[in-house]
């Protein structure tokens, strides 16, 4: 069994083992934690080959799965600089999520742990699949456990939130399935690498209309998942009502599925469509950035505030992708990781607060920095990362995205950068009302983070600093993969000239660029 197969199957094995553990014991927790930790350590060894291989796929698994006449589906998996870090993010955050579930989930814990592992299986599959059909299958596999976790363990009107989340996502992915099947009818294969080769060699050509339709089909699924404004209204409810470990994983990793799909498939399979739609998608992304931030400004519930802030931050990722600039694409991928760490940490800490106070309303807190200084400090660090303070992770991603946007069209950067101002405002106001001031009667004796509580927080903080200071550990592999993606979109250079005729003087034309693929 190859390494990548092991990383993929480990959570699934864990899932089955958990199902056979006794319900009323520590065993489900122990098995789940062990399986996720093993997965994590296995996944670490994906780094070396991926970095060594540059833009080509490494750790490739390619075996026959379904082989019937007319329908060949291959279990084709591979790693490059884009999905490498997303998989590592997933395998790192899963044990942390399991760790906090132990104290935060009270009933039917065995099922919950099993679902977490199934979820991990689905996510890893989504990120490493190189066969469109397999990708689609994993896409749905990841959705189901999350739906069950939200619906089964959430708060308040969790039922309707879960259904909305499920139906919304399903509806989007139906269109994607349509695109995938149509592509199969044209190319005769589901294999992404083969399709790309056919497209590049000219064996397969798609007309502008075909590309547009394909692109829109994929977009429907990805735009809901990211989400892109105005398809976002499932998110605040789901994030707010889901149990903390689910929100943590949903915000930190699952929200990256859509963005990953955009950069991996939408851009390369239908570059014509992507270029045609780029202006209005970028516009929607910017609307999302500002709109999400403005609504976050007036939220009274901490989780809902972070949820809206997520809409804002995810807008940066989409904007970066559709700048068709190296900086924008690198920034987008970097921001995926950074947002996973910072927003994940924020939701985790919010979960600790909810655990202590039984509420997420800002008004119920106030002055808790005095009884819980550790919690306040950790929250402050995550908050600073989230609002893009330099030396922490989000700054690098946001800066590159905005730089890419400024190179593509300067007004994009102007509007999107407004989100950076607003992020400071909504976060600091919330922090002030929840943490500063004199502690109220109920909060005066709030417990600080215990040693056990700190354990999942510390690696996140360490990574925020690492990604913020020493980007060279991550960026070269990301850059080589994204530059390959931009080459595959084929028109990045012609497009550049078309979009900004004369507006960006001589400097841009002297850019050393190479045209790999000219239509």
């Amino acid at each position: 069994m190859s390494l990548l197969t092991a990383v993929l199957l480990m959570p699934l094995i864990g899932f089955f083992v958990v199902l056979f553990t006794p319900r009323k014991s520590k065993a489900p927790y122990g098995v789940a934690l062990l399986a996720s930790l093993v997965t994590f350590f296995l996944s670490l060894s994906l780094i070396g080959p991926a970095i060594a291989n540059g833009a080509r796929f490494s750790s490739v698994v390619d075996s026959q799965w379904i082989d019937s006449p007319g329908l060949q589906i291959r279990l084709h998996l591979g790693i490059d600089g884009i999905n490498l870090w997303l998989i590592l993010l997933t395998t790192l955050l899963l044990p942390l999520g399991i760790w906090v579930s132990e104290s935060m989930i009270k009933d039917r814990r065995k099922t919950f742990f099993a679902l977490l592992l199934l979820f991990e299986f689905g996510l890893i599959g989504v990120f490493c699949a190189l066969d469109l059909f397999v990708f689609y299958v994993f896409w749905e596999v990841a959705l189901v456990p999350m739906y069950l976790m939200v619906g089964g363990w959430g708060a308040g009107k969790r039922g309707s939130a879960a259904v909305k989340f499920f139906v919304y996502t399903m509806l989007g992915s139906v269109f994607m399935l349509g695109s995938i099947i149509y592509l199969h009818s044209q190319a005769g294969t589901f294999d992404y690498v083969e399709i790309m080769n056919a497209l590049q060699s000219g064996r397969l050509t798609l007309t502008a209309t075909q590309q547009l339709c394909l692109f829109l089909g994929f977009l429907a699924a990805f735009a809901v998942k990211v989400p892109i404004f105005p398809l976002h209204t499932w998110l605040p409810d789901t994030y707010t009502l889901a149990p903390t470990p689910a929100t943590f994983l949903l915000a930190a990793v699952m929200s990256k599925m859509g963005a990953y799909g955009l950069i991996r498939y939408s851009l390369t399979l239908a570059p014509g469509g992507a270029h045609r739609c780029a202006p209005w998608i970028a516009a929607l992304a910017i609307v999302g950035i500002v709109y999400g931030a403005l609504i976050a400004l007036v939220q009274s519930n901490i989780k809902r505030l972070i949820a809206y802030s997520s809409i804002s931050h995810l807008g940066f990722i989409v904007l970066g992708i559709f700048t068709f600039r190296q900086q924008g694409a690198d920034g987008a991928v970097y921001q995926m990781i950074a947002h996973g760490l910072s927003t994940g940490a924020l939701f985790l800490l919010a979960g600790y607060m909810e655990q202590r106070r039984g509420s997420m309303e800002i008004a119920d807190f106030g002055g808790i920095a005095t009884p819980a200084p550790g919690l306040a400090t950790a929250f402050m660090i995550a908050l600073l990362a989230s609002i893009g303070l330099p030396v922490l992770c989000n700054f690098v991603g946001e800066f590159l995205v905005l730089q890419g946007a400024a190179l593509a069209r300067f007004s994009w950067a102007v509007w999107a950068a407004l989100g950076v101002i607003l992020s400071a405002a909504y976060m600091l106001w919330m922090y002030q009302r929840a943490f500063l001031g004199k502690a109220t009667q109920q909060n005066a004796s709030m417990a600080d983070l215990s040693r056990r509580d700190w354990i999942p927080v510390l690696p996140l903080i360490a990574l925020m600093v690492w990604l913020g200071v020493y980007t060279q550990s991550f960026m070269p592999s990301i850059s080589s993969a994204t530059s390959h993606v931009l080459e595959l979109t084929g028109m990045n250079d012609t497009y550049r000239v078309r979009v900004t005729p004369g507006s960006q003087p001589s400097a841009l034309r002297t850019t050393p660029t190479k045209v790999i693929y000219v239509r």
Partner: protein
Amino acid sequence: MHLWLIPLFPLIGFLLNGLWGKRWSKPVVSAIAIGSIAASFLYALAVIAKLSPIDTPYSEHYFTWIQSGFFNVGCDLFVDRLTAVMLLIVTGVGLLIHIYAIGYMAHEGGYYRFFSYFNLFVFFMLLLVMASNLLLMFVGWEGVGLCSYLLVGFYFLEEFASNAANKAFIVNRIGDFGFSLGMFLAVATFHTLDFGQIAAAVATLPVEAKAGVITAITLLLFVGATGKSAQIPLYVWLPDAMAGPTPVSALIHAATMVTAGVYMVTRVSFLYLHAPVAMNVVAIVGVLTAIFAASIGITQNDIKKVFAYSTVSQLGYMFLGVGLGAYSAGIFHLMTHAFFKALLFLGAGSVIHGLGGEQDLRHMGGLRKAMPITFVTLGVASLAISGIPPFSGFFSKDAILSAAYSHSPWMFWIGAITAGMTAFYVFRAWFLAFFGVYRGHHHAHESPSSMTLPLIVLAILAAVGGFFNIPRWLSPAYPLAENENAVAMIISVFFGVIGIVVAAYLYVIRPAAADSLKAAFGRLYTLVLNKYYVDEIYQALIVRPLEAISSFVLWRGVDETLIDTTLVNGLARVIRGWGSIFRQWQSGSIRNYATWILAGSLLVILVLGLAGGGR
């Protein structure tokens, strides 16, 4: 040469005190905090001595920070003559204020927290002045902003403190918005953010007679400067920032951080020199801020607020200088201001400390006997800021005003009038605090020697600092002005003396006159006392509408009602509606199905028959 050691010491101090300071005793915490700054100061001295005379910039590359496509930013530090001046101000004045803080903070809770933030501030400030590219400078720039936020909100149990901290951070973010856009445009234009490379690239371009891309870059960067250095229209955060402990006001909000904008403009002077339009804007904003803030300073009753507006005003002078192209004069004033304004704040802190927290000038008076050292040192600072020869402020202010005199008369006259106002408000505060009869209740006492010692050192610097000839030291990079203007000098000193005399008359000789003056200018006085209602105007025009729109229009209106309820759930309802129609057909009744099958078959036969018949 290991330049990185200079900022490293305070960073270590921050980490040690931040992580374990809570468990350590106060002497240990202070030893670490002060030791780290002292080490930094001494090492900076050693570096400068070794590199002296620093004819060419000395730089070191450590690692690549961000690399994406053509965009490459290194973690590079460098030292040239300008940096050397800043290094000594930051570590030297920083060291004095750290020592002072031992005494001042002795009875405060969160001692270790204070010193760890203080050290972190010095780290970021050193990064800011040593960075050899705009982005790394921006790291320091944002970092000092963070420390300012943390320290302004140091008394976080009080709402006014956390309000002021938030305001400081958010207003600075607005400035940083401009700074970032300036960087994006610089990258688009020059493909680099490295100072040396931009300077080389811009040297080949013509000076922009009309506003062009360099003008745009410089103006956007200046927006950042108006935030950090508290100029119109973003100055509003600085007076509120006085909510922090007084050593914070002295170090961050007087001597170092707020001057970062002046330093930045000087650092990228090669850009500004190619954008005369932008330079004019800088000078005009500077001179207007100078007189505007001075006018507010005249009416304030809180001693720290007086000095805060004074800082805004003096920063305006510095921008006037750099905007006129007199960069070395601006930096010269930056240095002397660091001495006398830090001294003014520390002296004010000594008074506040001696009076058990009293900040209102109306409750002071006659303190010269109880606090002789504070009295004398504050007097020296007041003379220095008033531009009375031979005190330090005279030389630097004169350098700026003679540049204004030869550039445009109206700027000179506003500057000179402001000099008179400056002398008036600073001596008003000095007279109100130390002359007349004591109007408070607390038993006044002189501060401990850890506080008075820094006062004495700073008083010496404020007195003789004018003889450190900064313009000459900087002259290789920033040419000296051709002629020192005697007329300008005489006029500005004259205005300074007038200001002092009027203050003495109103507050010592005829105290009743001040009140009748207030009454005579009732409306105007109220307007100025309330700071021209600028905060209220911003609140009404920007903050409130933004909240209302976000809450009612965007959230309740667009998000919940329009998108979610109407569109999404509406779509669901429509689908359910269709579903309920189709559900009628799925009745489960066999007879029903049979009827439909029959009808369908008939229809098919009919259609086929018609189609066939047609053929």
